[in-house]
């Protein structure tokens, strides 16, 4: 479908960076997953006001790497998000993204697990729910940490740490929904609003004012889209390590490299926090990969790709694992459940000894000397 728009095309798309673009192609060159057809070329299309069906737009992971390299502040990732939004509005969504969205819509999680089972992870744990106690903080567990067996261990560890630190918190259990961060990145604004309204309703019902979360995806959307007070679990951890409430007694004698999550790093400028935590673990040697901090590459799990895996030819997770191997790291530390899922799979598929661990895993080990 071709639409030629004559007037105020930029307003229509709600993307102002458009006219600033001078088509240098930096974004395309830097993009780890681009096949050369985006973002530059698609911005040219947008500029023209000609919108057609672009299947390649779904290769974009919304990792914002291109934004970092744009000399004109064009925010190509926003252009990609805009194009995705237009595609969604026209109903042209590739099957794997459609499935992701339908799962979130029907079951409030990307995998299509039963909503009833959201609280199952805490069956044997002593985790307070909002229904049965007073609390200061709501721990928003997040979809991955609630369902995915690969990161459930992290969830359990967080629960134990929270309990032992005697923090006044509670979880929503079965009432927890999906934060909608990736739904928004896909451009499904209607669904995002639905989720946001629903979440706010739940927050109001239980008097939630402040949120702790471990997932950078939840953190990002709560902070920037919901505008609600939110704290990253790692921030909490960092504070406790600093004031001595958390004692890191056990040595972790490994070479560790840290992979920046896009939603912590480029989206929210949190680069040093996880690194400081890692540095305070005794025995740990922190090394940096070739691309780190601002230039870090994505794990491939963003923008709706977490449920079925990234569909492109280039698997960024594998690139990332190779980078970690290049610096002879034993452990690839992550701070995001999505990254953990993607990178762990990549590490298995390249058949190497690289262990992918959450920062929480490492801290937990250092605190209790177990759990690895």
């Amino acid at each position, binding site marked *: 479908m071709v639409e030629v728009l004559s007037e105020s095309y930029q307003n229509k798309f709600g993307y102002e960076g458009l006219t600033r673009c001078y088509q240098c192609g930096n974004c395309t060159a830097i993009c780890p997953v681009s096949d050369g057809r985006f973002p530059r070329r698609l911005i040219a299309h947008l500029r023209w006001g000609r919108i057609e069906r672009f299947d390649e737009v779904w290769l974009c992971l919304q990792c914002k790497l291109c934004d970092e390299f744009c000399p004109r502040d064009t925010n190509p990732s926003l252009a990609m998000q805009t194009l995705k939004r237009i595609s*969604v*509005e026209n*109903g*042209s*969504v590739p*099957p794997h*993204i*459609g*499935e992701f*969205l*339908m799962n979130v*819509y*029907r*079951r409030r999680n990307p995998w*299509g*697990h*039963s*909503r*009833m089972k959201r609280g199952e992870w805490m069956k044997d744990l002593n985790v307070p729910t909002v229904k049965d106690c007073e609390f200061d903080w709501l721990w928003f567990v997040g979809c991955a940490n609630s369902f995915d067996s690969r990161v459930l261990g992290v969830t359990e560890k967080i629960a134990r740490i929270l309990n032992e630190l005697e923090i006044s918190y509670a979880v929503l259990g079965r009432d927890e929904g999906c934060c909608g961060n990736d739904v928004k990145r896909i451009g*499904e*604004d*209607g*669904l995002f*609003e*639905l989720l946001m309204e629903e979440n706010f309703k739940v927050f109001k019902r239980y008097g939630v004012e402040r949120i702790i979360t471990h997932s950078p995806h939840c953190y990002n959307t709560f902070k920037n889209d919901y505008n609600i007070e939110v704290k990253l679990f790692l921030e909490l951890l960092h504070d406790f390590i600093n004031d001595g409430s958390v004692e890191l007694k056990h040595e972790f004698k490994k070479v560790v490299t840290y992979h920046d999550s896009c939603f912590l790093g480029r989206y929210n400028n949190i680069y040093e926090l996880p690194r400081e935590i890692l540095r305070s673990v005794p025995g740990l040697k922190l090394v940096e990969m070739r691309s780190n901090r601002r230039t870090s590459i994505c794990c491939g799990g963003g923008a709706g790709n977490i449920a079925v895996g990234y569909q492109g030819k280039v698997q960024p997770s594998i690139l990332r694992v190779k980078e970690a191997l290049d610096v002879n790291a034993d452990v690839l530390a992550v701070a995001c459940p999505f990254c953990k899922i993607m990178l762990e799979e990549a590490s298995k598929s390249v058949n190497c000894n690289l262990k992918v661990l959450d920062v929480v895993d490492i801290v937990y080990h250092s605190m209790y000397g177990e759990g690895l």
Partner: protein
Amino acid sequence: MICVIVRAVPDLVEGLEIEERDVRPYRYIANELDEYAVEHAVSLKEKYNERVEVIGIASEDAYDEIDESLYMAIAKGVDKAYKVKIPKTTSYKIADALSDFLKKFDIILTGTLAVDEFYGVLGATIADKLDIPYVGGVRSIEIEGDSVIVKKELGGGAYLVLKVKKPALFGILSLEKPPRYVPISKLRSVMRSAEIEELKVKVEEDVLDVRFLEPPKPEVEFIDGDPEEVAEKLAEIIRGLIS
């Protein structure tokens, strides 16, 4: 005119609550194959500009939950939606009840089967009541004058291409491409503006008792140990089976 019959069925993902004389689903959703039928009807509308109507049938419990699927059908392009409340009953009674309403349509689509009706007779029964042809297991439909050309799946990748005179009823089994995605904002605006007409039809209740027959648990034995031990045990078991 095309009509699609959409049934509300238990959402198996959410699970069931099994009681003494009843099976209670936590939640209902539209039968997946019926949604495929909607998809087919909408593409026919796009291709041949046919009017498409949809009728949702749901039990007392599912009567509200069927709405969402009907609205989604409207968002996809269906012209009108009806719904009918039915008690616990068999396909034969449903067919009886609906045949009057369905007379005016020349193409009727529905899922070949449903998760609560694996024997797949609803379509066939209705066709029988209306005295029109029925083809099940359909993958694709094209209209050619007053006939319809359908591809029926035979399994193993084989197809049967049939030419059927209208009116006819087709049981849909699959899609050629995945169902289209409906943006939620569109769905929500449809929910605000469109209306679902409630069809008052008298359906006799004739199912009195639903029981859950628990299948016997198969005996599973995990063999532990190092490979040699495991092999030893395994060999023993196989020997036992053979002799």
